[in-house]
C-alpha cells in the first residue's frame, strides 16, 4: 500500500520513538500537521514563535538525553528557528529539525515564503539536507537521527518540499544499524595515548581535572566522578559541565574562567598536569591562550571531536573517543593512591590558601535584595534538585556560581552562543520531559522579554515553571562591561518602560509575585515552590548596581582576576 510523504514523516518519527514535537504550523507543512492530527503517539507542542520551538526542543534534549525534534514551516518559520538551531549547534545538542519547503517546482523562483533553508543553516547544523524525492524521506530521517545523536552530537535539518508530503510511495523504514561510509566517529580512545596519559597522571605533582559539556552529553558523569575521586585531585566543571561532578563535594573548586572562582583559576594556571575531558578550552574559560600556554604544564585532552583538540591550546596527549569509554580505560589503568600522596597534600595545602580568599563572598545591604542571595535561597528551597534553565547575562553567572549542581542535566543554559531568550522556552521542554519535577527559569528582565510569548505555551500545556526574574532594571552584564571598559557610559543598557511583570503573568493566566525585601526572599520561594500546579512569575527587585565577581577580563590571563572591591 502506498502512503503519502506526510504520513511517512510521522511514521518515521514514531519509529525513532519521538515523544514530543515542538513546532508551529504553516502553509508548507500543512499535510504533515494533518497527519499529526490523525495519530496519538506523538504529542505536538505549539509554541508561540519558532525560536521558542527550537529552544524548547533543545531544553527537552539537554534535560532528558533524548533527541529534541522541531517542526517549522518554510521561509520565516525556518529563519525564526535559526537562533535556536545555532544555540544547539554551539553546545552540541542532538536535535532534528524538519522544515517545510515550497513545492519542488517553485524552488529557486523566490516563491512566497521561500528561503534557502539548507544554505541558511549550513554553518549552524551538523548536517542538513533538502529531500528531493518522496522515496528518500524515510531514509533521510533515519540518517538525520543517526547523525544528530552519534559522535559529537548536534542539530540536523531536513528540509522537505510541500509537494513531496502529498506524493505517495511505499513506506519502509530502514532497520538495523545505519552505515554511512564517510562518517565513522571514533569511540574508544587510542591505547597508546591512554597509557601515555596514565603515565603523566601518575607522575603529576599538582594534578587538576577540567570537564565540560562533553561529559554530560556523553552520559559520563558517573565514570567521571569515579575518575576524579580515585585521583583525589581538585576538579572544575565549566559552565556547560556543571553537575558532571557534584558541586558540594570537597574536591570541587567551582567553575573556571571569566566568572570562575579564584581557587579554580589559580589551580588551572599552576597545576603541572591538566586533564581536560569533553571541554574545548573556550575563550571564556582559559582567557588569553598565550597566557594559558606560557605556563609549564602538560595537558591531556579527551574529546570525541578531533577538531576540538589543539584548536586553541596545544595539547600534549590527545585522546579522541567517547568520554565514557576513554574514562573507563583511564580508570582501569589507574590503581589506588596516585599521584603520590605527599605531593598531593602540598598541592591541596596551596589550594586551601586560595580557597580562603572566599571569592564568592558578597556584601549584603539592609533593605536591598541581592541577586546572589536569591540563588542561594533557591538552592536551599529546592534542595539543589531542581532543573534550572537560564537566560544570558549576570543572572546566568550568579545561577552558575551559587546554585550548587550535584547532578548532570540539571543546568540548562546557552553556554556557547549566549542566547538571550533561551530560558523560558527551554523550560517548556524541560518541564515536559520531567513532569512533576521542579523547574526554575532563572532570568533577567531584559532576557525574559525576548521570548516572553512562551508564557502562553506554558498556560496551554499547564507547565508549572517557576520564573525567577532577577530584575535590576538594566541589561546587567552590558552595564557591568560599560562600567569596566567604557567609562560608565551606559549606552542603551537601561531598560526604560518595563512592564509590570506580575500583571503581565496574570494577563497570561498565571500568578505573579513581587519580592522587594531581602527577608521575604526565602519565604516567598518556599511558598511559590509549594504551589506545584501553577506557573508563578517571581519578580525579584534586586540591587541595581551589583556586579558579577570574580572576573577575568576578556583577553587577560587567568591569574589576572579582579575580585570584588572588598576582597
Amino acid at each position, binding site marked *: 500500500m502506498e502512503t503519502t510523504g506526510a504520513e511517512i514523516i510521522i511514521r518515521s518519527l514514531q519509529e525513532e520513538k519521538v515523544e514530543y514535537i515542538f513546532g508551529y504550523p504553516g502553509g508548507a507543512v500543512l499535510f504533515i500537521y494533518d497527519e499529526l492530527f490523525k495519530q496519538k503517539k506523538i504529542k505536538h507542542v505549539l509554541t508561540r514563535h519558532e525560536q521558542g520551538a527550537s529552544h524548547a526542543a533543545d531544553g527537552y534534549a539537554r534535560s532528558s538525553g533524548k533527541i529534541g525534534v522541531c517542526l517549522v514551516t518554510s521561509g520565516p518559520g525556518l529563519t525564526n528557528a535559526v537562533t535556536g538551531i545555532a544555540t544547539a549547534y554551539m553546545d552540541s545538542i542532538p536535535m532534528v529539525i524538519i522544515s517545510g519547503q515550497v513545492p519542488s517546482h517553485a524552488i529557486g523562483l523566490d516563491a512566497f515564503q521561500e528561503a534557502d533553508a*539548507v*544554505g541558511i543553516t*549550513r*554553518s549552524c547544523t*551538523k*548536517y542538513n*539536507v*533538502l529531500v528531493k524525492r518522496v522515496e528518500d524521506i524515510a531514509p533521510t530521517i533515519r540518517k538525520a537521527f543517526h*547523525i544528530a545523536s552519534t559522535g559529537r552530537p548536534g542539530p540536523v535539518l531536513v528540509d522537505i518540499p510541500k509537494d513531496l508530503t502529498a506524493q505517495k510511495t511505499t513506506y519502509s523504514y530502514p532497520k538495523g544499524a545505519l552505515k*554511512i*561510509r*564517510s*562518517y565513522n566517529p571514533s569511540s574508544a580512545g587510542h591505547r597508546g595515548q591512554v597509557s601515555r596519559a596514565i603515565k603523566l597522571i601518575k607522575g603529576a605533582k599538582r594534578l587538576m581535572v577540567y570537564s565540560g559539556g562533553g561529559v554530560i552529553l556523553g552520559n559520563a558523569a558517573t565514570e567521571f566522578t569515579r575518575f576524579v575521586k580515585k585521583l583525589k585531585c581538585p576538579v572544575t566543571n565549566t559552565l556547560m559541565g556543571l553537575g558532571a561532578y557534584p558541586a558540594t563535594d570537597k574536591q570541587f573548586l567551582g567553575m573556571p574562567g571569566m566568572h570562575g572562582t579564584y581557587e579554580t583559576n589559580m589551580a588551572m594556571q599552576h597545576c603541572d598536569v591538566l586533564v581536560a575531558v569533553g571541554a574545548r578550552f573556550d575563550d571564556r574559560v582559559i582567557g588569553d591562550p598565550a597566557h594559558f600556554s606560557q605556563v609549564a604544564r602538560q595537558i591531556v585532552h579527551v574529546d570525541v*571531536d*578531533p*577538531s576540538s583538540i*589543539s*584548536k586553541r591550546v596545544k595539547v600534549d596527549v590527545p585522546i579522541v573517543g567517547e568520554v565514557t569509554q576513554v574514562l573507563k580505560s583511564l580508570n582501569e589503568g589507574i590503581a589506588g593512591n596516585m599521584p603520590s600522596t605527599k605531593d598531593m597534600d602540598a598541592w591541596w595545602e596551596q589550594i586551601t590558601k586560595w580557597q580562603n580568599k572566599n571569592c564568592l563572598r558578597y556584601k549584603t545591604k539592609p533593605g536591598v535584595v541581592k541577586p546572589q542571595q536569591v540563588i542561594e535561597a533557591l538552592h536551599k528551597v529546592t534542595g539543589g534538585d531542581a532543573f534550572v534553565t537560564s537566560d544570558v547575562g549576570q543572572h546566568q553567572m550568579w545561577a552558575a556560581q551559587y546554585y550548587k549542581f550535584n547532578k548532570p542535566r540539571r543546568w540548562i543554559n546557552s553556554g556557547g552562543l549566549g542566547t538571550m531568550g533561551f530560558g523560558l522556552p527551554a523550560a517548556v521542554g524541560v518541564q515536559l520531559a520531567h513532569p512533576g519535577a521542579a523547574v526554575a527559569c532563572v532570568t533577567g528582565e531584559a532576557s525574559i522579554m525576548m521570548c516572553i510569548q512562551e508564557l502562553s505555551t506554558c498556560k496551554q500545556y499547564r507547565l508549572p515553571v517557576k520564573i525567577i526574574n532577577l530584575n535590576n532594571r538594566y541589561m546587567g552584564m552590558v552595564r557591568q562591561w560599560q562600567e569596566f571598559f567604557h567609562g560608565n557610559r551606559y549606552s542603551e543598557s537601561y531598560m526604560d518602560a518595563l512592564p509590570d511583570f506580575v500583571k503581565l503573568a496574570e494577563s497570561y493566566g498565571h500568578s505573579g509575585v513581587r519580592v522587594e525585601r531581602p527577608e521575604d526572599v526565602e519565604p516567598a520561594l518556599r511558598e511559590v515552590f509549594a504551589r506545584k500546579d501553577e506557573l508563578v512569575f517571581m519578580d525579584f527587585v534586586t540591587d541595581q548596581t551589583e556586579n558579577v565577581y570574580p572576573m577575568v577580563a576578556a583577553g587577560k590571563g587567568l591569574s589576572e582576576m579582579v575580585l570584588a572591591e572588598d576582597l
Partner: protein
Amino acid sequence: MRRVLSILMENESGALSRVAGLFSARSYNIESLTVAPTEDPTLSRMTVVTAGDDTVIEQITKQVHKLIEVFKVSDITEGRHVERELMLVKVRAEGDEREEMKRLADIFRASIVGVSTKTFIIQVTGDRKKLNAFLAACAGNIVETARTGVCGMSRVSEDK
C-alpha cells in the same frame, strides 16, 4: 605557507558549497579550488590550494574531515606530488605577431586551440610557475585569460 589539500568526498549536490562555506565561515582563504567526479561516479575529488601555518592547516584538515560527506583529506604538499593547471590565453596576433605567438606556444609546449583574424587562443598546461612564465613571455599581447585551479596528486599511492 602554501598548501594543496586533496579532498575525497561524496558526489552530492551541496557538498562543494559545504566545503567552500566552511572555509569562508572560518575565514580561511581559498587560493584555488577544482572539483570533478572521480573514476567512481559517486565520489568527487576536490583540490584546494590554501595557505597557513601547521596549526591552521591542521584545523582546516580536521574541520573539513568533520563534514559528513568527506571521506578523506590529505595535504599532498607534505610529500612528493604533481600539480597541474590549465590556462587559456587569448592573445593579440596580427601580422608578425602571429608567427611569434606560434613560436612562443611551441616553446612552452602549448597549443593553439582557437584562431581568429586578430587573435589566437592558446592552451597551456603545467604547474603554476610555468603558466606564470608563459604569461610574462606574452605579456604585451594578452587580451584575456582563464585559468583552472590546481589539480594535484600525490606520487605515493595512499588513497587506495
